[in-house]
Structure formats: C-alpha cells, structure tokens
C-alpha cells in the first residue's frame, strides 16, 4: 500500500456537496452523487506525496464515526452551503467537536460551496481541465444565479475565528481567516483547485516532518521489508 503521508478530512452537513467537491477536484467533472454512506477513502497523488482524503457522510446516522475519521488529521475542511444558513450552524453544533481527535497542529478551512447559485463570477467560471463533453452536459443545466445567499463571507470568517478560540489557538500565530475561508462551486469548478492546492501547500510542512520522523522511527515499514515479513514484523512489537 502506498503509505499516505498525511490525512485530510471533509466534514459538513448532508447535501452541502462534499463528495461533489472532491469529485470535481479528482475527476474534473460534476455529476449527480448519491448520499455517501459512512466514509470514503481516497488516496491522492500530489507530486511526490500521497495524501489520503476522507470524504465523510454528512448524515446524522453516521455521526458516531466522525471522530474516527478525524483521528490524526492534518487538515479538516469544514463545508457549508452558501444558500443554507443552517448548514453553517450545523458545522459548529455537530461537526466541530468531531475534530477533537485531529492533530494538535491540524489546520482548518471553512468552505462555502454552491457559490454558482448566488454568484455570477462562480457561475460563469469554466474548469480548464474539464472535457468539452462533460462541460456540455453541465451547461445544459446552467441557469442564471438567482438564489439568495444566506451566508455572507463575514459569517464564515467569524466562524473560523471561533474555531481558533475553541481549539485554544492564538489568532496571531495561526493562519489568518482571509486565507482559510473559501467560496467554491463544485458544479463549475470555481475555486476548487485553489482550495485543495492551498491546503496541500499548507500541510506540506507536516508531511515533511512526518517523513522525517519516520526515518528515525523505530517502527518498521512493511512495504520496505516485503519478504522478510516474519522476522521484522515481530521486531516491531518490541
């Protein structure tokens, strides 16, 4: 197994578009998704690094699993729907506490998805990597943005500040809200790459630190010692 270097978790209420965002980023298209069950694990090759991404189910049914998915996470993406104020409130009420199991230096991003529904800029955005076929399919359903935006960016920013306070982090030494709050559209691809790339850049130090630690780590990487499985595996117990 390609050993993941770092773990990123997507959290948020049902139907905010977690799976669609990830799908846009990895497959360059937007299609109907089915409500995720449990969580889905993806391994994303990012340059020389392997990033594991957990796309979790937003349904309350799977709430109990959230903290397991978050364990040891280096980054958590908290996603809400810009046309649904409740979805931001849910992040604070239901999802924030799940991140208690994340790394202490975990970074948090607050993302408002479905910006294409309220924002002409996001609506007209074209994903340069999308095949013309997929785009044509998407174009068909494209209508003027007219839904009322229920969550202004300032609300997301103040939520981000509350996260820092919840985590007992100092605002000055932490990443600024301006850098960690995004508005995206999984449908058009607006800001999606920006989000993931920015986040991966930010977790890079923790990847490098982890790789460093691993070099001096007393545990054995099975990948490196295939064939000598038996002997080496036993030594790892000591």
């Amino acid at each position: 197994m390609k050993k993941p270097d770092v773990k990123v978790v997507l959290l948020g209420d049902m139907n905010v578009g977690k799976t669609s965002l990830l799908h846009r980023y990895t497959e360059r298209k937007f299609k109907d998704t089915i409500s995720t069950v449990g969580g889905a694990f993806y391994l994303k090759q990012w340059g020389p690094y392997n990033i594991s991404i957990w796309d979790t189910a937003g349904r309350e049914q799977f709430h109990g699993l959230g903290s397991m998915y978050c364990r040891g996470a280096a980054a958590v993406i908290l996603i809400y729907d810009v046309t649904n104020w409740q979805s931001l409130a849910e992040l604070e009420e239901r999802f924030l506490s799940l991140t208690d199991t994340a790394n202490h230096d975990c970074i948090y991003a607050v993302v408002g998805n479905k910006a294409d529904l309220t924002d002409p800029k996001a609506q007209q955005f074209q994903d340069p990597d999308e095949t013309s076929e997929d785009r044509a399919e998407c174009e068909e359903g494209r209508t003027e943005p007219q839904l009322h935006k229920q969550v202004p960016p300032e609300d997301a920013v103040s939520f981000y500040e509350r996260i820092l306070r919840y985590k007992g982090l100092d605002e000055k030494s932490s990443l600024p809200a301006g850098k960690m709050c995004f508005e995206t559209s999984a449908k058009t691809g607006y800001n999606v790459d920006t989000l993931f790339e920015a986040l991966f850049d930010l977790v890079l130090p923790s990847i490098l630190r982890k790789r460093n630690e691993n070099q001096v780590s007393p545990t054995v990487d099975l990948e490196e010692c295939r064939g000598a499985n038996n002997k080496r595996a036993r030594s790892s117990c000591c």
Partner: protein
Amino acid sequence: MERDNHQEGEADGVKICGPTSDGNPPGKSCQRSPYLDQVTRPEAEKTENFECQNSVSGQQSTRGPEDATHDNDQSDSGEFVVTMLAKAKLEEQGIGVEGRSSPLLEAGTLESPALASHRDEDVTADSWRQHRKHVFVLSEAGKPIYSRYGSEEALSSTMGVMMALVSFVQSGDNIIRSVYSEEHTVVFLQKGPLVLVCVSSSRQSERQLRGELLYVYYQIISMLTQASISRIFEHKKNYDLRRLLAGSEKILDGLLNLVDSDPSFLLAAVHCLPLASSLRDSLSQILQKAITPNLVFSILIAKNQLLTIVQEKTVIEDTRLEPADVHLLLNLIGASSAFQAGEIWTPICLPLFNPDCYFYAYISYLDPPECTVCLLLLSTDKEAFYAVAECKRKIEEAMVAQNSLNLIAKVQPYSVSQVGVSDLRHFMYKPFDVPDNFRQLTQFTSPEMEAPYSNEEEKMRLLDLYRYMHSRIHSTSRPLKLIYHVAERETLLAWVTSKFELYTCFSPLVTKACAINAITKLLRWIKKEEDRLFIRYPPKYSTTPNPSKTSRGGKSDQQDSTDNGFLSLL
C-alpha cells in the same frame, strides 16, 4: 386465462387477526374463508362498529368477487380506505379494470428514468394513486418516516389515517393485517415502534407483500440497528426518524425497485454468477489468504451477483449468512457506488445475523473505471479500516497475478438454450438439498431472460406470473405441490418437492406430459452443471485475534503476525 384464480380465497373487506399471530413470519397469516370479512374477534358489536368506520358494506361481502369488477360503488371497503389514504376526491373511483395493465407498464418503463423526482410527486394527482405499489413507513406516533412516492410531509395526514386504523384495531386487542378491495391490497406490518404499510395493485399475495415489507424493515434496521430504534422511541415517542434516515431514501427506493424486478427476493435465495468451479475456487483461495484479525466475511461480487463468499470459521459455526442479509448488502452496494477510486468504510447491521450490532463494511471496486467487480469485506472492528484495506491490496495483487479480472470479465449469465430443451423459455430452480453438513447459503439458479421477455414490460409480466405461481404453491389455505398453468401467451409449470422448488416457463402450446418430460431433462442438466451454477462449499478462514496453536499449520499464524505488525504501524 386463469386470472380468476387470483381472487381465490380473497374477499373484499378488512381482515383482522387475533394478537397471537403477531410477529409471525409472513407465511403464517391467519386462515381466511372466502367471501367473508373475517374478524376473528368474538364480540360482534365491536366488529360492526369497525365496519361502520370503514363504511364496509355488508352486502359486498356476500357477493362473489368476480362480479364486482365494474362496480364503482363508493362504499366498497377497501377502496374506501385507499381513497382515504389518497386523500382524493371520491368521484375518482372509477379508474376501471384497465388499470391493471397500466400499473404494469408504469413499473417497467416510467419508474427508472424518473427516479429523482419521486419525492416531488403531487400526492393528490391521479398518477400518484395509480402507482403499482406504494410503501409507507411510519412511527407508532403516526409520524411519517418513508414513502416510496411523494414527500412524507405531503402525506403526513394520510399516514395519520393509517395509524388511526392500526390503533383503532389495536384498542380492541387486535391487529390489523390487511384490507382488500377489488383493485388494491393493503397490507400492514408492525415491527417494534415502526408500522409498515403496502398498498398494492400488483395482485401479489398478502404473504408476498408482507415479506416485501419485512425487507424494507430489515433495510432500515441494517442502517440503524433494532436496538437503537427501540432506544430512540423509548426516549421520545414522537421522534422524527427521518433525521437519521435522511439520505437513505435512495437505498430504500433501490430496494423496492429490486424487490419488484429481482426474483431473489421472492425466492429468498441468492443468485450467484455461473462460474467454472476451478475459477471460483481460485478466487475463494485468494480471499482466504487475505485476512486480518476480526475479519468475518469476504465477498466478491460481479454484475451484482455473487462470485464467491468466504466466512470466518468460529463466527459462523452455528449461524449462517441469510440470503436476506446478502440482498441488503447487494442493495447497499448498488445504492452507494460513490465514485470509482474511493474505498468505502461504513457501519452496517445484518439484521438476520444480529439485529442489534454493527459490522463495519469495506467496499471497493477492483476494476475501475468499469466498476463491475466489487469486493466487500466485513469486520467487527470499527478501527480496522487500514488493516482491511491492506487485505484488498493483497487480493488485488493476487488477482493481477492470476489474471482473474480478465477471466471474470468473460463470465456471462447463461442462456436457456444451453439446456437444450425445446419450448423451455425460462426457469428458476432453488435446491434445498445442501451438499455438506454446514448449512449453506440458500441459492437459486436462473438463465438470462431472453426474447420474448427482453423488454422491461415483458420481464415484469413473466415475474408476475412467477409471483402468481409462487403464491399458489405457498398458499396458506391450500398449498400445492405442482401447478400446470396455461396462461395467455405461455404455459407455466411450478413444482415443489422436499429437494427443490422449480418454476418453469414454456411456449404456449406445450402439453402437460411434454412439460414434465422437459423438466426431467432440465433437472438432469442442472445436476450436471451444479458445480458451475452454485457455490458448492463456501470456504472458511480463521481470523480470531488469538489463533489457537491447534489451527492447522503455520500459515494462518504467519498471516496473523504480519497483520498485527501492520496494525502496530498505525
């Protein structure tokens, strides 16, 4: 045509049973006598009261069912209930007998493309009322939980009426089981704090419909467990269960579509893909070797059918995996094929195995981007994702080495022409005799449906004929061993013995002698092909955390130490 026989033993009216029959499996419905509203309760006064509530017509019950077909009499009891359920205008009663063919058509063609819009359906529209089969789930407090068509909100008062019926009958220490009208059968099923209701114009037997409701119940249990549902409702009687089931509607929709289109549910048996036994064995061995502590089932699926299943030895000692649990798993996979590259990790309860506990299911496709071959690994350890994912890696490697995926891709369902019996168009064969002492998974085999059953409508028609034969064979009042049924466009023969259950479909002009002769040939062919058609000996492995030294050889021990080593890395 033998259509009249559909009505055999069925009378218009409300059927109520004493409380003793509660909780019985669907088969054990109470005895019914034809042409009589059967109320087993002695107090006649209350009975009448109930009839009045439903405007049940005494005169109706004395009539034969045949002559009622063109009658739009609004006092017809069942129709009245259905009307109430539909909150529709009473004048709309005369949808007529032709309605029988239209729901069929609709089930086949309209449903699949319109899947997404079912929630938005106008529940006061005629089209809503004409659906072939409605399914509703509500809580004892009368709160809507699920409706197959239309939104639950729009149906809340309808469901209130259903609950009123249920509790009215309950208040007299009775249980409402079904309501019959000439066009609809309404079946009730109470399971714990949940009430399930089916309103069907499919002409299926009450027992079949109740069996289908039970599948719906089990699917809900598989997502929430029975224990947590009882706990929730003990705490709060009027809890809105949709909060927990939100997002799962498609899983239930998918289940109901499968129930209508896949005979596995009717037969309560799993359908495995026909496979050369050498290939099946090699796949089983691959699964057998890729284990980790607390892994209990490894299941390989292609084209929504079983390829092989390997199970933990000790866990399975006195229980077996029930077909219904496998059906629920297959439905879950079908409804959650997120996207290719992902590996899913989700809790799932197998209600017949243990209705109160979760397994953790690892689901991943082995052949992206086609996604036809799916691996399902079940563990009892919530935290075992990485260890289980490592098993998949091993399985993948071994399958590459043995070129298994290419071999699986070539596997096809078989054609009935391979049997070499002329006039035989289709069959379903479910053996009861198990080849070894381990009670094994109940299976059935069936060829692909070919012309004239190649379009959805015709497929559904054949399935309906099978369902009819099935209901006759398993009739509670008059079970049969053998039925020779000459239908309009085909001849069917169903036969049940202590060793098997068989349903065959022939071209229309086949004589009885000819059909029996053909069946002899068919049985001979199945015997010959047995190894290919069925999973004969479900293999086992041992993954108990501390394998006793008695377990044979060092192989499994070595495997365990490897996996433990891997675990310690995490």
